[in-house]
């Protein structure tokens, strides 16, 4: 029997029970829309977590001296030529690289006239920090001019704690490679605010050369490279491992295992969400399909009697299920996308601020709708439609024409 005829028959059969199938269609549409929308939120969280981990001065790839992570001091450091660039490496082109930055990051103590606090002192070249959160900070006062700037930038949370202000002086104490403490006075150029309040209390920034002068050295403790896309990471890792033999070349996933684990688990969460929603729906789907077959037993028997093949009967039931599923999927995807559009710029979640920032999320969650997720939902739902129609279809096929017509 021609497929076209079967499709036509299936389509008309669906219309015989407008109400029942309409409601089933509504259920499928709602479930698909809910899954699409939920996916966009979950993906949004994932993208943001990964972005923030990269932003947190990790970059996609970071080079560190062995032992620095355990004992972050200037003793665990290395030299980088001033004109070093990752896109000079073989196989790495400039359009793969978003930027790179070398820094001197050491634990230090900051003292104002009133208070003393432990902090991380980071010597940076402000021109290259567009690759991290440092380049995006809102600063009251002035930012650092260049790598030789002898002023500091402190977080608002820390400034409050140690009671300092723009223009005031503070003293920084840190340990040199020889184990002796160095201290020097600096002027506060600006006070920064960050989405993540804990950062404000930890990081104090000044020029990279300034920290090197203080420590009487020309080494750096870290070199981050940010890529335009995550997928360029493996080739870069390879090249860097060759160039910086003896140093640790690490991905952001290795540097921030929590964020990496969270982003990895999200791929699973998306599937779990799908199977739960569609699992609940499949009870209704199976129910309707079985009923549709059972109440048409006589009709099916008649079709068989006039020469319809068992295979065609089976195909027809599957087609009916696929048609209604297809319509539901189309409607659900459209509604899901329409619901996503007004929130595509982000949803303010200020109420959960601190907990979110601990997870590496900021106040505004930007949902992400990926074509691949929508395709996944569509394909999995179609498969589910097939599976749900299997039992009624087989039941229908098994019945002999005479037996069926007698019922």
């Amino acid at each position: 029997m021609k497929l076209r005829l079967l499709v036509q028959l299936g389509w008309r059969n669906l219309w015989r029970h407008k109400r029942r199938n309409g409601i089933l269609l509504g259920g499928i549409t709602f479930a698909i829309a809910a899954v699409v929308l939920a996916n966009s939120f979950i993906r949004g969280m994932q993208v943001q977590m990964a972005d923030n981990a990269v932003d947190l001065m990790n970059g996609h790839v970071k080079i560190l001296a062995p032992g620095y992570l355990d004992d972050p001091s200037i003793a665990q450091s290395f030299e980088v030529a001033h004109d070093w660039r990752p896109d000079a490496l073989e196989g790495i082109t400039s359009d793969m690289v978003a930027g790179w930055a070398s820094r001197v990051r050491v634990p230090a103590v900051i003292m104002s006239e009133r208070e003393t606090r432990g902090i991380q002192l980071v010597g940076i070249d402000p021109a290259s920090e567009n690759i991290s959160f440092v380049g995006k900070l809102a600063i009251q006062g002035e930012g650092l001019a260049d790598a030789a700037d002898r002023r500091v930038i402190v977080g608002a949370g820390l400034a409050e704690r140690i009671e300092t202000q723009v223009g005031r002086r503070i003293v920084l104490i840190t340990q040199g490679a020889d184990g002796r403490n160095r201290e020097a006075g600096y002027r506060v150029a600006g006070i920064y605010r960050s989405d993540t309040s804990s950062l404000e209390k930890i990081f104090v920034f000044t020029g990279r050369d300034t920290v090197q002068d203080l420590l009487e050295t020309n080494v750096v403790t870290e070199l981050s490279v940010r890529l335009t896309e995550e997928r360029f990471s493996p080739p870069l890792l390879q090249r860097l491992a060759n160039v910086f033999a003896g140093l640790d070349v690490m991905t952001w996933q290795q540097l921030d295992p929590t964020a990496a684990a969270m982003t990895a688990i999200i791929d699973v969460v998306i599937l779990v969400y799908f199977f739960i929603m569609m699992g609940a729906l499949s009870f209704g789907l199976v129910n309707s399909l079985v009923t549709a077959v059972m109440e048409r037993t006589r009709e099916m028997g008649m079709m068989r009697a006039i020469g319809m093949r068992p295979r065609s009967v089976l195909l027809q039931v599957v087609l009916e299920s696929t048609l209604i599923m297809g319509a539901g999927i189309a409607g659900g995807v459209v509604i899901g996308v329409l619901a996503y559009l007004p929130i595509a710029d982000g949803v303010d979640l200020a109420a959960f601020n601190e907990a979110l920032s601990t997870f590496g999320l900021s106040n505004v969650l930007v949902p992400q709708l990926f074509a691949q997720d929508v395709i996944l939902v569509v394909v999995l739902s179609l498969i589910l439609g097939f599976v749900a129609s299997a039992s009624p279809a087989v039941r229908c096929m098994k019945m002999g024409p005479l037996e069926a017509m007698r019922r």
Partner: protein
Amino acid sequence: MSELTLPSVASTPVRRAVGRALITMAWRNLWRVPRRTWLTAGGVGFAILLVVFSRSIQIGALDSMLEVGTAQLTGHAQVQHPDYLDDPRMRSTVAGLAALTGTLAGHPDVQAVAPRGMGFGLVSDGSGERSFGGQITGIDPAVEFATLASQALPGGRPVERAGEGFMGSKLARNIGVAPGDDIIVLGTGTEGGVAAMAVTLVGLFESGIPDLDRGFLMVHFDDFAEAFGLEDEAHVIAVLTGDPRDARALAADLAAMIVPLDGNAAVRPWQELMPILEQSVVGEIGGSALFAGFLVVIVTFVVVSTFVMTVFERTAEFGMLKAIGMAPAAIFRMVQLEGFWMSLMGVALGVVASLVFVYVSAIEGIPFSAFGDFDDMMDRFFLPDVMMPRFDSAGALLMTAMMVVAVQVAAAIPARRIWRLNPVEALRAEE
């Protein structure tokens, strides 16, 4: 159409008999198509199982998060200077310590009271060559309950008497000291002067929380008080109670007891001290409510489609019932009763399945490692190695109520047509 109705003057016993008959009929009607009934009730049960079981895991995890998280250091509530929470300064102390601790300990729900002095200082090795900044906490070993203060790495022990220090393992490594070495602490006292103390390191701890391991030193309260200039005062008085979930009520209770004594004290429950913990609890519960909401709507669709089938298939039957004098309201009631039986079955399936799931998984607990590599996060959020699900009875009740209502609504939507049914036409409808 002139309706034939049951005599409205029917006596109460008759009404009761009709009511009983309807209940029985509804139950029997369900079993005319057992497969459909099972599938629909199964859908209801499935939704209940998913919501209740996932919430049970969540509640179990949150319970231990609270327990571990509060016991480690913070306690269930703290008495502090009113300004201390927002702006922890050396001079923001609560005075009248001896009297306060006595009053607090007198409350029947208070299990432990631990005064602490807290400040920031520069911690150096004996020669003063290597120094790191750290949080200095003075504790009284006799009353201190913080688990952090009692778990030393092998080769050391916690602070037991004055002149001793106990610090995070990473701080010790950064400074280059080990148990047995002398350490020097420099800070700023309550009056702004230099506070200095020398103690002998007796042990190290490893909490897994980077901030603590890298920058936390515990000394004896007496040493702290002397160095920083505290006189019968402390920065916080931490309190432990039976159940952390009662902390807010306890804090209000304690505040009523002590604030009249000294206006310069506030009682903070852990929710205010550890907002991250509180918000992650609220956030997770919000997330699961959204999830439950989606599921209820989907299952309602499923149930509506079932009842559409049920009602339309039985057009002729309803017409007959109407023709022999049954009131539309009574037929409607019968359909609603069918829905009620159906939802009861679904609830029973769902609740029993959840109980079984929770019971079985609570025998061994669910290891967090089953979900991925979360060592780092487990420490930071005080997660235990295994989750012990605790049956979420409130969630089960709420889901039961929601599903029963949803099924009643779902049954009512198609059943409205019973009133419009013309018995003659309905009877003609194909069986």
